[in-house]
């Protein structure tokens, strides 16, 4: 029994396929986050919403891309490509779960920050500024 079998290599190839799709999408985003935030495919719910924990569209596209690899393998009846596509889908499901946990942590820490801010005692009020003296402009007073 070989220590590294063909099945192991196909497992790694499937993971690498999903990782390539995910890494290219994330790399493009990280190259210019200010430009890509909110643009296709980096679309997600706003951070104020509980729906924020749902991964953004680019994470789901990794699953779709992996599914396409699996479908291509099925279509041309190539067992290895089908297996790689299946493994890429498994890998992308794991990465989706990762994204859910990361986003839930971000959302929870934001909620905690907001509640800490709300519980803070109000700062003592600053002394009122002295009102400026009214400007008196000389006017001509009628004597009649």
């Amino acid at each position: 029994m070989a220590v590294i079998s063909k099945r192991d290599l196909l497992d790694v190839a499937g993971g690498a396929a999903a990782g390539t799709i995910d890494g290219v999408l994330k790399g493009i985003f990280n190259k210019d986050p200010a430009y890509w935030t909110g643009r296709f495919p980096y679309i997600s719910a706003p951070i104020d919403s509980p729906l924020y924990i749902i991964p953004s569209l680019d994470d789901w596209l990794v699953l779709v891309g992996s599914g396409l690899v699996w479908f291509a393998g099925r279509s041309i009846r190539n067992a290895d490509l089908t297996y790689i596509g299946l493994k890429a889908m498994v890998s992308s499901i794991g990465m989706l779960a990762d994204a859910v946990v990361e986003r839930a942590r971000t959302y929870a820490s934001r909620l905690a920050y907001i509640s800490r801010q709300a519980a803070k005692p109000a700062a003592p009020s600053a002394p009122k500024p002295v009102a400026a003296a009214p400007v008196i402009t000389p006017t001509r007073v009628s004597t009649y």
Partner: protein
Amino acid sequence: MTFVEESAGALLFAALSQGVKYGREVGVIPSIATGTRIDTEDIVTLVSAAAVDKLGEFRRVGKLMEAGSGGLSYSVGKIVSKLWVKAIAGV
């Protein structure tokens, strides 16, 4: 069904990865920062998934083998993804 069991394995190893990452963030687990985003949790997940996969293979326990196989794909995918991010964006 293989796909379900492998996906369950990937989810288990994703949970392991998040646990190790949390431990690293609070200082319980040391960091082995590599200059990319690859860190302790990635290496631990990869090694443990490969170990579970091989254990299942040698002991002929199908479910263990499938769970390890799913975890191996997941951890390789994550590492490759981080390498691509480093190559494209430099972070």
